[in-house]
């Protein structure tokens, strides 16, 4: 999985590409750890280019969301497609973590108050 991190209007935007799964859990944890260390409280995960997602990834998404919420932060997911969206829905993730159609929409919702 390839991960790109940037900052957009004060929110951390992480673009994931490829397979988000058990094998790639450590690289994801490391990137999220750096984001937390840098003091970001708003995290946008762009899933548009993710082609495969397993239960380990679901667990990491929920754990990340929980940790951000505990620190009065928020997490949003952007544009999961195809089977990745189906897996997220099977696990009821959209009920817990908001899903946006575009990065633009997520940034608008996550803008600093």
């Amino acid at each position, binding site marked *: 999985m390839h991960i790109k991190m940037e900052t957009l209007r004060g929110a951390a935007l992480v673009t994931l590409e490829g397979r988000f799964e*058990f*094998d790639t859990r450590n690289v994801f944890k490391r990137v999220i750890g750096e984001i937390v260390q840098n003091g970001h409280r708003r995290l946008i995960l762009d899933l548009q280019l993710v082609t495969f997602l397993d239960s380990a990834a*679901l667990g990491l998404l929920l754990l990340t969301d929980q940790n951000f919420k505990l620190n009065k932060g928020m997490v949003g997911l952007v544009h999961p497609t195809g089977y990745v969206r189906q897996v997220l829905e099977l696990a009821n993730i959209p009920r817990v973590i908001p899903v946006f159609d575009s990065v633009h929409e997520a940034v608008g919702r996550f803008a600093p108050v």
Partner: protein
Amino acid sequence: MNGPSCPPALRCVREVFPTEAGIRVGRSGLVESLKRLGLPETHLFAIELCVHEALVNALVHGIWESGGQRISLSCEAEDTCISITVEDDGGAGGGPSAVGVTGSGGRGLGLIRVLMTQVTQERAGHGITMSLNLKEGEEHAH
């Protein structure tokens, strides 16, 4: 292949090297074999995810937690049904917990139960057989 509901018989038993790289090779090898049969992408995705989840469970609970050394992956594809078994030789305990797909644990097993037609666990979680009825999948797809 004569059509999605009539795959030719495929029978295979593979030893999977009990490492993260090993289960990746085992999973993709099986998926490639099933792809060559001409299975539709929807079925392939479900099978790939479920085999992946079962192999990860075997690696984590059977090898790492229970001191096992071997993982086997077998598959039988006949007519309208594909049946896949993943087993490890881990000791007692350490099997995945049977919680639903949205629970705090056993999320992988929950996904398997949702995506497959029938799931049977054996040896206190160290063996799982899952089957997919291809006709049922077609009915759902329409």
